[in-house]
């Protein structure tokens, strides 16, 4: 069992870094534009959650279809990815890890102890997946004219493998930290209201 010294402070600092990096990334969102079918803004979430096969590729091609905006858009995306790499990812998953481990050590039952310890170590999965995803985006946004096979009207509909892989990646990347965070907050609320204050 790992005991984290100054867990409370570690979590507060991580939370502050998450907020700060989110704010900085949010500022870059103002510069994201693509052509689909006319010029429109988009967010990082659209890269992460393409609704259909080749939506990601279409979105990136759309960026380069706007010569006046493309350079600024790519720069803004790269800044977002860098902030994500350096600040957001370590702080977010690290913070949840600290919170889970600390709550696990407070648990009186074995079930609770193992559940929160498991949730803490499970954060390694989204942590790695997020880095893989960001590296993939970093490579993809550097490409121009990505070939996009449009669905053939006379052949059955197909879903690309990369799209399916992306969907699974997002489920784990978002599902595990959100599950852990929700469990932690619930437990904190319980401890607070029942007088077994966390500290």
């Amino acid at each position, binding site marked *: 069992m790992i005991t984290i010294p100054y867990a409370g402070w570690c979590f507060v600092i991580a939370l502050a870094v998450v907020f700060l990096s989110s704010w900085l990334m949010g500022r870059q969102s103002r510069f994201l534009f693509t052509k689909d079918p006319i010029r429109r803004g*988009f967010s990082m979430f659209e890269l992460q959650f393409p*609704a259909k096969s080749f939506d990601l590729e279409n979105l990136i091609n759309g960026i380069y279809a706007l010569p006046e905006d493309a350079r600024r858009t790519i720069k803004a995306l790269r800044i977002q990815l860098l902030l994500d790499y350096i600040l957001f990812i370590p702080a977010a998953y690290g913070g949840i890890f600290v919170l889970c481990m600390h709550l696990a050590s407070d648990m009186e039952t074995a079930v609770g102890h193992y559940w929160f310890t498991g949730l803490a170590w499970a954060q390694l999965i989204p942590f790695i997946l997020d880095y893989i995803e960001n590296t993939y985006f970093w490579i993809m946004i550097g490409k121009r004219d990505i070939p996009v096979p449009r669905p053939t009207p006379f052949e059955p509909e197909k879903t690309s493998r990369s799209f399916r892989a992306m969907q699974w990646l997002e489920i784990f990347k978002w599902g595990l930290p959100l599950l852990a965070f929700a469990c932690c907050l619930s437990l904190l609320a*319980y401890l607070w209201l029942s007088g077994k204050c966390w500290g």
Partner: protein
Amino acid sequence: MSAKSPHQNKKQLTPDDFKNDPRVSACVDQVRAHPKIVSDVLGEQGEQYVNLVQKGGGVLGVALVGYVYVLEQAGIRFLKLAGTSAGAINTSLMAIQEDKSKTKSDYLISALADLDLFRLVDGHPFARMLIRGLVQQPDFMKRIRNLLRNALIFLALILVSAFVLLGLQHKYPVLGLATCFVFILIGLYVLVAGVTGAYVSSLLKRLKTAGFGINPGDFFYDWVKAHMKANGIHTVGDLEARAATAPALKIRSPRKEPVADLKGDVVFIASELVTQNKFEFPAMANLFRTADKMNELQPAGFVRASMSIPVFFESYYIKDIPGNDAGVNALWEEQFNLKAPPDTVRFVDGGILSNFPVNVFYNKDIEVPRLPTLGIDLDDSKPGDKQDEPEQWSFAGYLGRMFNTVRFYYDKDFGLKNRIMNLGVGKVPVAEYNWLNFFLTNEQKIDLFAIGAEAARKFLDEFDWSAYKGDRQTFFLQQQNES
């Protein structure tokens, strides 16, 4: 519709499934057994030529194919073609084929058999699921309401449980674990609600960025484009040239008028929102490009524009209109009294202005027509629609009727002032189908096709070409006297 059908479990329909349906075969047998005179313009093989206008109506367009099939089996061929939305789709697939003396419905049926209608709904998977639910399950909204109500009841239960357990655990410490569990349940509930809320919010944002169109319509565009390409139509010029062709024609004896002036034509109707006008394509394509750059426009785009059901499909845009070209500007001024065109125009379904454009081929200067303009009217009004007590309409019903009054009046006004044009219109009763049901089973597709075929047979039974000409002449003389 029969409860059990041989087509029900087939994955892929074939043209024979449509043509060999007993109801369709019966119609064909009857129209062949009782040939009818419907026009005075004849082809070399004795085929009779008419102009045809097809009404829009989403998937109900399947019935249009059945109607056209039976007309062709009766020896009728088409010179000028016009349509809106689903009518424009059929019109385009007929107009792109070579040789007007040949039947066109075989190709249409083949295209219909190969087409998975659901693929036209090419939007977000969630939107597809929602549309499917709304269209196919009459109690879908009730189920959603029940789901929300149950979710609220569950939330209330776990909140009350948490409150009670939290109090009781001071006296019964053994309840601590259960209290903790309930708290985690609340957390997970909030998580699920939050994720759902964020998802719905992202979908709404996506809808906004997509110009308030749920489905991009890209599949449909590619589908029409592929059909055009397969028939050698690559440019607007190709389409116009193909549509304008006319076979060797002659006039039925004893009439003596010339027929050399009779040419083919094709018209797709689209509504434009920037300048708020009705457009007829491809004739009005020169408002958007100069002649030397006309190839930048895709003829498939005109059909895509015509079928852009608002909200259901994304709008169709034509960009970079040459506003600095004097010729283009002059056309805009002449056509719409606008000094210069906008840079970009945005089209939605022609049906919001003229869903049944029977007026496009009407020539008031003709006393006795050589050929009739036939129309296929998809009648989806239910008997109860016009009997409802107006005091009891729901807000949605009130808005719906207001919208329909506006949207139908353009065509209705023409019909009221030129009732003579209704003589060539056959009504296809399709009230039992939802025009947005892109999830039709094979059995339903064939049923719609047969309904169209039966409507065509009924129309031919009742149509009297001599009376039509007589009425047109009387109407012409009345108009002359009035003017």
